[in-house]
């Protein structure tokens, strides 16, 4: 087990090195730190002096080493536009994105289980057929179209919900949260619904198909033959067996939600990391772009490594718990 963890961590370090190298190459070939520092109105000679001073004329491996060393200390360069350390800019935008992912996850969790179970135990009911039809179409509708439709219905026509920005936020330590004010929560509703629409149909279908498979098993038939109540059979015997494969997939797909925040944030002008990133691209803010690349890369590597290690730890226990 220990060997497994070590191997997995070593591998993660190698991957982070690769990410750092990609980030470095982008910065090295595209970025212009001199412009970032002093702007364009400086003579060539002065530029050259600054380049020397910054070590930009050093051999590439040394520069890469310096890049990694600085990155390890949290220095990912200065954002050209914000005139602040890039990492600070990203971290200040992170709460917005994480709250959006959180909101969408809550919506998914609240709806996918009851709906998935219902459509599994009543596959022929008209409501189930309707849900399945909607979820089939839902998979094909891009998240930004869902978002536009939501804004049109609830923002423009009905005027029930705010459609852009985060509303009122409260600083909680270093964390700017919109979860504690009524206004912030109202602003969170539409973006979260839009974001959840991308995964909810997939989860409903997954839970439904897993549950239907379980309902066909001998042990469920035996549970009926034992004269148990239907709710105990559905919610304990069948559901508990459905849960294991679903949880496995759930961890992986949270990352996909994160990817789709970029689209959601754009439509709703949600001031998160994705919105910031696209602004950075528009403004050719290379340092910020590279910092984003490194942060996101490291985030995924860390999450995946942790998930893998947890899974490795849990796996023997899963076997004990009887997952065949």
């Amino acid at each position: 087990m220990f060997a497994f963890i070590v191997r997995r961590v070593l591998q993660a370090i190698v991957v982070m090195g690769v990410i750092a190298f990609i980030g470095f190459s982008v910065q090295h070939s595209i970025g212009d730190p001199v412009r970032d520092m002093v702007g364009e109105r400086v003579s060539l000679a002065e530029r050259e002096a600054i380049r020397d001073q910054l070590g930009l004329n050093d051999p590439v491996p040394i520069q890469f080493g310096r890049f990694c060393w600085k990155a390890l200390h949290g220095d990912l360069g200065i954002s050209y536009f914000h005139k602040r350390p890039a990492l600070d800019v990203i971290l200040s935008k992170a709460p917005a994105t994480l709250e959006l992912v959180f909101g969408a996850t809550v919506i998914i969790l609240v709806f996918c289980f009851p709906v998935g179970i219902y459509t599994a135990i009543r596959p022929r009911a008209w409501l189930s057929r309707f849900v399945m039809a909607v979820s089939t179409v839902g998979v094909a509708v891009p998240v930004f179209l869902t978002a536009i439709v939501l804004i049109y219905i609830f923002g423009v026509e009905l005027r029930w919900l705010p459609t852009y920005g985060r509303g009122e936020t409260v600083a909680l330590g270093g964390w700017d949260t919109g979860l504690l004010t009524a206004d912030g929560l109202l602003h969170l509703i539409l973006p979260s619904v839009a974001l959840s629409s991308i995964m909810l149909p997939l989860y409903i279908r997954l839970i439904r198909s897993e549950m239907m498979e379980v309902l066909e098993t001998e042990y469920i038939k035996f549970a009926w033959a034992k004269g148990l109540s239907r709710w105990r059979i559905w919610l304990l015997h069948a559901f508990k067996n459905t849960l294991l494969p679903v949880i496995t997939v759930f961890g992986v797909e949270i990352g996909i939600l994160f990817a789709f925040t970029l689209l959601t944030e754009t439509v709703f002008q949600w001031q998160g990391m994705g919105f910031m990133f696209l602004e950075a691209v528009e403004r050719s803010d290379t340092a910020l772009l590279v910092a984003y690349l490194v942060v996101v890369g490291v985030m995924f590597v860390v999450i995946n490594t942790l998930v893998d290690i947890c899974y490795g730890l849990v796996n023997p226990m899963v076997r004990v718990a009887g997952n065949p």
Partner: protein
Amino acid sequence: MNAWRRLRKSYFLYSFRRDPVALASFAIFFFLVLVSLFAPVIAPHNPYDTSTIDVMDAEIPPAWMAGGDARFWLGTDIQGRDLYSTMLYGLRTSVAIGIGAVLFQGILGIVVGLTAGYAGGRVDSFLMRVADIQFSIPYLIVAIITSAIFQLAFGLGRFEQLAMPLLIVIIGISEWPKYARTVRASVLGEKQKEYVEAARVIGLNPARIMYRHILPNTLTPVLVISTIQVAQAVMSEAALSFLGLGMPVTKPSLGSLIKAGFQYVFSGSWWITTFPGMLLVTFTLVVILFGDWLRDVLNPKLYKG
């Protein structure tokens, strides 16, 4: 001729004929592909021909609405282009990118998967590690970051010029691991079988065994995921273009049309986004439905992951 007769008698065609959803979705798919192929012939206007576009015609509603113009039955967009023609050209671009990207990722993934599966050992574990690592980062993130880097590297003007081939490469790069894993899994399955053993015993060279004997047997799962991947690629293109990282507004694709109309939806010009949006949903939906059917019928053991 013989193959055709065999196909006509096959279970494949039989179940296709009996499934109205499969039939309808394939018919619509086929129709849309034809339309996009012949867009220059069908479309009444050419959105690339700036001489025929008049900004005075901008934001004209569809012909059946008050203020509509009989020349533009679905209305015009903000630059005064005929929306119907622009959509046809946009579909053409989207489909071309979708199919191109799938070809690109397919070839890349198949080569990697075949090599890994057949060579085994260190080559296998190295290639699959790379695939695993990329697979653990959502394809959309990979695509977005890659195109952002490309955009900065090439500069906006040059990126817009090269947008189409670049998008094919970007979407291709972001999705190849799926093919690599699928192909590798089925190569490992095929390798166990006697006919490969027999081919090796009679002294055929490995490359020949791989391409002439193993590859054909891995094509079923490849075909199945390819259908879904086309839908995925078209949606990726739309997402990238919507973010401003894909096709520029001057080169219409479904995504860039939706983006262009997005700001005007709420001020009343709903059609600029709605019609391309509906076309996009229809296209991806029929491809997904057809892909689902294909998967159920061919039922290969897909690599889950």
